[in-house]
């Protein structure tokens, strides 16, 4: 008897406590910046695609849900011809982000990707590519790489000296 009254009393008290349930979708939950959600492809500070189509994300993907084809522009700068993620297979493990040598592929705090048809979960490059740099600012792979590809001249990269004169024999 006493126990029942106590229970009713406690339930009554809860009416005055702060609510834990968030009224999603009217209200959004806080997601940390490093939360692993929807995958995006970002751009470098010069607004070019960061992805160099190195295939490392595809190789590391445990569900094999990333596929792409590399191509090159007229300067030899490599980029993906197409880049496809099948989100119906993706497990949001973030290994692709770890593997990416150019900070291109990033997982962002967004999970609102529900679809009625599985086919609609297949994202192409146009769907993945965003306008900004994502979480990592200031990095441009081609500034530190040894290839020139129209981004810089030979020897003009970070930490590079000018090209050597191959006809010079001075010790």
């Amino acid at each position, binding site marked *: 008897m006493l126990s029942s009254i106590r229970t009713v009393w406690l339930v009554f008290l809860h009416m005055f406590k702060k609510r834990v349930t968030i009224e999603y979708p009217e209200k959004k939950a806080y997601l940390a910046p490093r939360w692993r959600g929807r995958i995006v492809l970002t751009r470098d500070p010069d607004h070019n695609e960061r992805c*160099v*189509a*190195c*295939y*490392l994300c*595809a*190789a590391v*993907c445990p*569900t*094999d*849900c*990333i*596929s*792409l*084809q*590399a*191509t*090159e522009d007229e300067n030899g700068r*490599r980029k993906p011809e197409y880049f*496809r*993620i*099948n989100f*119906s*297979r993706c497990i949001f493990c973030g290994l692709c982000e770890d593997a990416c*040598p*150019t900070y291109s592929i990033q997982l962002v705090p967004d999970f609102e990707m529900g679809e009625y048809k*599985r*086919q609609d*979960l*297949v994202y*192409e490059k146009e769907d993945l590519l965003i306008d900004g740099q994502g979480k990592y600012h200031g990095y441009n*792979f081609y500034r*530190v*790489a*040894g*290839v020139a*590809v129209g981004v810089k001249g*030979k*020897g003009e*990269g970070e*930490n*590079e*000296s*000018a*090209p*050597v*004169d*191959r*006809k*010079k*024999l*001075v*010790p």
Partner: protein
Amino acid sequence: MAKVFIDDIEYEVPDGKNMLEVCLSLGFDLTYFCWHPALHSIGACRQCGVINYKDENDKRGRITMACMLPASNGTRISIEAKAAHDFRAGNIESLMLNHPHDCPVCDEGGECHLQDMTLMSGHNYRRYRFKKRTHTNQYLGPFLNHEMNRCIQCYRCVRFYKDYAGGKDLDVFAAHDDIYFGRSEDGVLENEFSGNLVEVCPTGVFTDKTLKQHYTRKWDLTSAPSVCHGCSLGCNILASQRYGTIRRILTRYNGDVNGYFLCDRGRFGYEYTNSKKRIIKALKRVSGTYQPIENGNAFEEVKALMGEGKKVIGIGSPRASLESNFLLKELVGENNFYGGISNTEGNLIKQVIDILKKGKVKTPSLAEAKGYDAVFIVGEDVTNTAPMLALSLRQAAKNKPNEEAFAIRIPLWNDVAIREIVQERTGPFFIATVHHTKLDEISSGSFYGHPDNIARLGHAVAQKINNNLPSVPDADRESASLSSSIAEALLAAKKPLIVSGTSLFSKNVIEAAANVAYALKEQGKDVGLIYTVPEANSVGMTLLSENFVDDAIARVEKERADVLLILENDLYQRIGKKDSEAILKRCNQVVAFENLENETTNSCDYLFPAGTFAESTGTIVNNEGRAQRFYQVHIPRNEVRSSWKWLDILRQDLQTAEAKDFDAIVDELIQKNPELQKIKETAPTADFRIGTQKIPRSPHRFSGRTSMIANINVSEPKPPVDNDSPMSFTMEGYHGIQPSPDTAFYWSPAWNSVQAINKYQIEVGGPLHDGNPGKRLFEPDENRQAKYFNDIPSSFHPSNDELLVLPLYHIYGSEELTALSHAVKERIPQAYIALNENEARRKGLNAEGGKVEFYYQDKKWELSLKIDNSLPDGIAGLPKGLNETSGIGYPFRTKINS
């Protein structure tokens, strides 16, 4: 055998090796860069440092390079000692000081020897804080991409290009850490073997430019063991595809054939398989245009055409597999099957096969050819007709001078010391051809003449070796003295090699070469005799053919045929316009099984899409009579399939329109052709399993399986099943050492680059684990009585008004299909007609490049003049097989006008 100690464990190893070879053969992972099993040691990179101990009491030892340390009895080394380990890690750290931050955009990444060795050495963090040295790159032509920043100065490229392949235009420039490998100025790398730099370079300085157009990492490629269809040598290749197109060709190691290398035609000539001109579905011609037709309907209609009492003839192909040719023969009947080449060519190949089968002289394999110490080439421009043979012969030319080094006990692997002694010298090497060929640069005597005069020189040599042979009548003094010196050199050699072939369409040349070989054999020499033939399966098809195209023409001219079946054969290319039209017009219906649109397919009624080497499985027989299996790389998402599948369905009851599997066809083939018995043994049958596992075509790291066709349908289909081989089309299967004919890629833990081949060999540079693939169909019999050919032709006399036109060959362009590939196309020469200066002046022509007219088969041809003073008087040369000159039958006589 010598006893060596590695980390205090005793091993028995063969004599005459160095410690690096020994360690790798024993399965140790020891880092190295400059050493290469075919290029041997120079001790330049310092990467294979080990500790060498004096004896068992020596606890301190000294660091020595394993590649320069002979594996003699009692040698004691440690790979694992900390000092050795630190030395190797430190060394690679220094080599990497200037290596760029390129791996993600480097085509070598994922199959990079430098990556592998860095991980293996233990070096992992860059401590050097100063600037990186950079280099500018060069344009090196359509085959190779140059990215000099990545170089680690191992010298392998120049050692291969200059020392091994005889190239002249790649060298090393500058000094100290500025060292530069490239050309003196931008330009196309000229050597025919430049593509091997892709595999020889341990990192990404030289990469495959054709792969770059559609780049894919090694781990994503689905590959199949295949055989090059570019010439008659049958070099082993690995053909790789991704998303349904062929991406690149790599060398498949075969210790008996091509070893570690390939020629550029074979490596870069694959792009025709991805051509827009491919026939990808069954087509029927309706009022002049081709319309797609349901397979089932096509079968039924063609079958109806071929019904009872109909006159059906079939033309085979020297580029189609034995199985396809055999099934065509079965379908049309033995008497109605014609080999798809002219009678002239067919009879020459028959003669070559006859000599291979009945002669008592060994036909060495491509690899064995490297072991001969004197060479006599009779009428063959080897560099252009069978390029890899030229590479073997270049090695053979080094054997004689090398002996001098061996005499002072320098082992073969000590490459620097040998080069120091030998310098540029070459052994006895004689060439008799129509005009100047590239191998002349290493020859000790060259002769240019009409094929009959070449044959006469051969007969004269044979006569000087065996005096019982009839002497050559009216021999001139010059060739008499040359024949004496050739005979003398061949007799002085331990292992003379005679090379000839069908390229000049001369029976006399073939016979003369055989005579020389027979005469040497009788003198007790260990002589070799190699003939090259025109195409990949020329020998195989000829073994199945009694008659050739000219017979077919004669037949249809007598009596019209109802149906003509053409198997993978562009008749216009092989027998010319006039003859092709003659035959096509006299057949009511023409059915072709073809890869690509060509002139012949323009006049067919039904077209079936036949697979190239990339989409077919089959067996082909190379010039030495070696039968080799090639596997289809993928099942394309269209109707293309092996020709033998189409043919098999056509001959069956249409209700069960399903081709038999490959093994059943092979069984039927060998039952009807017992001399081809051995083709069954060229590879395991389709039910072969390792445990319960198939053999994978893709590496275990293969990616994108749930995404690559998700744009079409998000539900993944079942992977295709291969009923024709024990191989799977996916990564599932056995990932250890596979049977050698079925190895689709080279990979071993920690060895991602092509250098993983070490792990597939019994001994580094030796045979593969279960023997080199391929089975020789004919072996020489020592006891046979060699029958000499006594037909000595008379000397050629140039006529005043007519010229004799002979074919001149080009590595890029003379082969029909590879010539359609983009990269190869860039290297095809302009069509020309070559004359010597005298002859040109006599015809009133003087300027090189001027227009020359001539008639062939009543048609006027116009080409520009090229002066080639090595051509003899009365002879003109035409490049064989170029667009402008295809379909010409050689030799022919013509008058020319300016």
